């Protein structure tokens, strides 16, 4: 719903009426921006009757409200839709209350509708009174005060580390599968170092008898199947074989260009 106030730009007095001293009937139109909806207007109008809300004359109230709407229209004040809806409804209620009930009329009786309106007004008034009583109570920070300098509760933290069996197994599985996780390691997977080749060759030819192809000493697995690794392993293996010969630990031979290179431990050598 649109703000009521904006609909009364030309008619507003600029001053919001006080709840208790709100002027009624005659000055309603100019002060209408102080109302919070049609129910509020009706509640204010009902005060002119100076009776218990339970004994209020709804018919009289309907007359007053309709007069209020007429005035607003006469002053070319555009009323919010719900004010007009309420006016239409009250006109209907008025006719129901004035005319004798038709025998075949359906829907609730005028009395039932009027009673409900009276109930709504009484309930709204009750809530306003309750709100006033609530706000009149002793309030924290106004009449009642909390501790001015609360002592802070220091928190002492114990940190316990924990891991589950699943964490453990997953960690192990991760290491064993060498998946993507390899922190701070320079990836040399595809490089078979000369040192590695030397170590391997030295260890193996020590137990070998005669001539054997250099490739047979190559590492197994991916070092043979993966082309990049194979290349590295072959190169390092050959370099290592030359190194062993240089050191006098091995002999190599090749029968022809591109023929297999063979290697054996030098008979006289010892390590």
């Amino acid at each position, binding site marked *: *719903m649109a703000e009521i106030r904006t609909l009364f730009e030309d008619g507003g007095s600029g001053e919001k009426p006080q*709840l208790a001293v709100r002027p009624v009937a005659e000055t309603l139109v100019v002060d209408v921006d102080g109302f*919070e*909806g*049609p*129910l*509020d207007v009706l509640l204010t109008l009902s005060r002119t009757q100076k009776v218990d809300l*339970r*004994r*209020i*004359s*709804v*018919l*009289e109230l309907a007359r007053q409200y309709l007069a209020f709407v007429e005035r607003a229209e006469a002053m070319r004040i555009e009323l919010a839709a*719900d004010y007009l*809806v*309420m006016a*239409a*409804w009250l006109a209907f209620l008025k006719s129901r*209350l004035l005319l004798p009930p038709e025998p075949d009329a359906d*829907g*609730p009786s005028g*009395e*039932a*509708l*009027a*009673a*409900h*309106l*009276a*109930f*709504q007004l*009484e*309930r*709204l008034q*009750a*809530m*306003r*009174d*309750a*709100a006033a*009583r*609530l*706000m009149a*109570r*002793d*309030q*924290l*920070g*106004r*009449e*009642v*005060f*909390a*501790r*001015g300098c*609360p*002592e802070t*509760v220091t928190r002492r933290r114990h940190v316990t580390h924990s891991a589950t069996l699943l964490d453990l197994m997953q960690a192990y599985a991760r290491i064993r599968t060498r998946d993507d996780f390899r922190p701070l390691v320079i990836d040399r997977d595809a490089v078979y170092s000369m040192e590695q080749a030397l170590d391997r060759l030295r260890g193996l030819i020590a137990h070998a008898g005669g001539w054997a192809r250099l490739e047979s000493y190559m590492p197994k697995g991916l070092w043979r199947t993966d082309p990049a690794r194979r290349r590295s392993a072959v190169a390092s293996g050959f370099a290592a074989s030359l190194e062993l010969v240089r050191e006098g630990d091995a002999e190599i031979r090749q029968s022809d260009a591109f023929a297999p290179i063979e290697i054996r431990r030098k008979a006289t050598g010892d390590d």
Partner: protein
Amino acid sequence: MTERGDMGESPFEAPPMAEQERMAEAVLFASAAPVTLKELAARMPVGSDPAAALALLKQRYEGRGVRLMKVGEAWAMRTAPDLGFLMRKEETETRKLSRAAVETLAIIAYHQPATRAEIEAIRGVSVSRGTLDQLLEMEWIRLGRRRMTPGRPVTFVVTQAFLDHFGLESARDLPGIRELRAAGLLESRPPPGAMPGPADDAGVGGDGAEEAGEAGEGDMA
């Protein structure tokens, strides 16, 4: 610092009641916010009876400048309201609530849990988003459980901070709530037939509400 061992021979033996009362006193005194029984129990030695300690404490502070007050499910030390005039210096600037906000707050407090449609049906105007936001921000209301009616609308209820602010033990202690209930003004009555309202189906979610009709028909002029 005294450790638990000093309290008794066994770590499972609760300290004497007088000592428990002292402990409850210290904890409540040190806290500006209400302390729940559960929190208190968690801080006191194992086997303590915080409820009994609080009962003793409440008695002790009867008529003093400071009182022990129950706030919902929690307890707090608060100055006696008759001495408020001494504390003007401590007074905190409270934001002025609009009439709409005050009324909305009262409706939620007295009717809780209340849906927005119910608030609107009572006030006869729609509730602006800002009003509820303000009350939520002040932590005087919070969302309750959804109403099990078509659309499952959210409900609003008042908070412990609300109770604390207005010095209420529970929402049952709201001023005049018994009389209002007895007068049937807290019931939700669906209107007979179509009644104008802020929303088309601002039907007040019913817990077996009665039709109107009992309100004096003879008084109608």
